[in-house]
């Protein structure tokens, strides 16, 4: 029931979202003929959490989401929502709702018809349904669009209708499959923030699939990084970025990508510079070290606190101004190094002295695991 509080004029709505339910995937596997799309994934989504599945295309993230939805059968393993095992439950009986990448609005129904459709299976009275439609429309600022057809709407408006259709039934779980990928860049950032606050407010357990790392890190409570049908790492956005479990995660996150430097013959750059020489202290099994482009500084311009390596001289190859900072590719002995720094200056070919932040250097062993 929406009531209008006379003193403030604020409308409080009945759309509250179901109390969060826990989702548990236990050794879930999916085969498409010979292809293993998802390989024994075990995962828990905490009640009320916004969990993002992130990974390159073909990594199995969408298949995982579709198995939670019930749109793909599970080859092996089990899926539980709350205390209920839903592995064999038909999608229409799982009490889950989903935003599709294409939005999948019903083209033959108006916006109102689209919002009303999920309510058709609830036992609400006609007035209650009308009320809910009005509330959701108000919440998503699409009240003016209620009588329009989907093909009359812009991309952003369609997206909001799709979200409205998802939340109106107050299901146990929201699933979102690349919900922002069809929007232009500016709208994507804005909509991302709105989605985030909406999810906070409703407190409904949400699984969100994207291949866009920036989107994932900005919106997630926890991120699951997937590759090749397997989970590489699960953690908060800070954890997966600063403490990646392996080289894949380290490389996948961050734009430009992290720099890997081979520790050959006990030194960097083909053994030319020894680790000790510039003050890098890593375990003996280290095969490669990783340095993020923003963790290297032009010599003399590093922050006053912290521990930094001794300068290494590179040759400037490409420099691109981004306004607030510069992105550059440096070279030494044929090895490239990406750098992001506001203090860069010079022309291609000029020498640049670089110091690494010793605290943030990541060390990996020969199998790509972080030490």
């Amino acid at each position, binding site marked *: 029931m929406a009531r209008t509080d006379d003193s403030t004029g604020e409308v409080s709505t009945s759309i509250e979202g179901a109390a969060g339910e826990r989702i548990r995937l236990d050794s879930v596997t999916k085969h498409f003929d010979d292809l293993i799309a998802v390989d024994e994934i075990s995962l828990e989504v905490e009640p009320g959490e916004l969990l993002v599945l992130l990974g390159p295309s073909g990594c199995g993230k969408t298949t995982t989401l579709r198995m939670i939805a*019930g*749109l793909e059968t599970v080859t092996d393993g089990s899926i539980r929502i709350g205390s209920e095992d839903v592995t064999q439950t038909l999608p229409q009986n799982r009490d889950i709702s989903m935003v599709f990448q294409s939005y*999948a609005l019903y083209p033959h129904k108006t916006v109102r018809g689209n919002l009303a459709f999920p309510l058709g299976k609830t036992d609400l009275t006609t007035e209650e349904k009308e009320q809910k439609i009005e509330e959701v429309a108000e919440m998503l600022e699409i009240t003016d669009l209620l009588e329009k057809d989907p093909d009359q709407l812009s991309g952003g408006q369609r997206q909001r209708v799709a979200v409205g259709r998802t939340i109106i039934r107050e299901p146990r779980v929201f699933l979102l499959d690349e919900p922002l990928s069809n929007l232009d860049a500016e709208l994507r950032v804005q909509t991302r923030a709105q989605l985030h606050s909406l999810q906070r407010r409703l407190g409904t357990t949400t699984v969100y699939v994207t291949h866009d790392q920036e989107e994932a890190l900005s919106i997630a409570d926890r991120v699951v990084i997937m590759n090749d049908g397997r989970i590489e790492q699960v953690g908060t956005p800070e954890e997966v970025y600063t403490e990646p479990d392996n080289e894949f995660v380290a490389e996948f996150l961050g734009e430009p990508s992290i720099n890997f430097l081979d520790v050959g013959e006990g030194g960097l750059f083909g053994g030319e510079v020894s680790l000790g020489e510039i003050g890098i202290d890593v375990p003996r099994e280290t095969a490669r070290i990783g340095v993020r482009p923003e963790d290297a500084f032009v010599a003399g311009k590093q922050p006053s606190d912290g521990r930094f390596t001794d300068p290494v001289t590179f040759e400037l190859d490409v420099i691109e101004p981004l306004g607030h900072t510069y992105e550059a590719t440096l070279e030494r002995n044929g090895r490239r190094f990406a750098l992001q720094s506001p203090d860069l200056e010079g022309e291609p070919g000029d020498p640049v002295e670089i110091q690494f932040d010793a605290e943030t250097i990541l060390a990996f062993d020969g199998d790509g695991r972080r030490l």
Partner: protein
Amino acid sequence: MILKLITSATEALGGLSRRFRRQSIEAPLWERALFYLTLGVVGFVSVFPFYYMGVTSLVPESWLYSRVPQAIPALADLTLENYEALFGAESVPFVQYFLNSLFIGTVSAALGLAFSIFGAYSFARLEYPGRWVFSRGVLVNYMFAGILLVIPIFQIIVWAKLVNTRLGIIVTHFIFVIPLGLYLLGNYFRSVPREIEEAGLMDGYSRLEVIVRITLPMSKPAIVATYMYAFLLSWNEYLYASVILRDQSLYTLPIGIEQLQYAFQNVWGDVMAASVVTTIPVLLIFLYLQKYLVEGLSFGNMD
């Protein structure tokens, strides 16, 4: 035939509007002249038989056999006597033929459509062994000329004891609707995005409910086209009706019109009057539903 006419006319119209948009830029005069000339010839060839059918039905027999053939009758020559004779003749239950055709067409088209909807949906969406064989095999049926199958089908009808019944002819027409129905609807269903159906499942509806409430409304053009095709096939079908039906009271219009030859003396005016009466309802339905029809047919890539 009418189907062809309408599709060719709409194609011509499409070509026309394309030409118009382009004319100010490039189409030279002679090209446009050639275009209209071609259009005129095609139009004349398509429409003249209908025109002459209409004229013949409205003039006395004597006018037809006048020494100098005329294309346009004088107003004074026009008469409804052919129609009066057609509906007045006791020996010819023309209204009965009309109702028979209407009934058989409506029912066989409805059955054919219902069957095609579920069959085509299964071809388009469901996975099962042998699907490929079924979905292609059904088109093979379409490659046989109707007359090749007369004897086997008649034997089946005899075996099923359906000779000289409405059901017998309904079943036969139904069989002939299915290949095209499956093909047309199957292609259309494939064009409905899977995600939209999945959204319906996620919104709490069963597969069957999703078909009825989402897939079918979205496929209205193909459904209308299939129904029209099926109805028309039955409405115009002569061969099987003449083989299966014996009693005059069961005759459909095509056989009925043929029978007029034996019932009337000066037969052409009456036959043409009957043809006009047969054609008009079909034309009316077509004009009313043509936007769906064109969309549905052009989608199934059917010429």
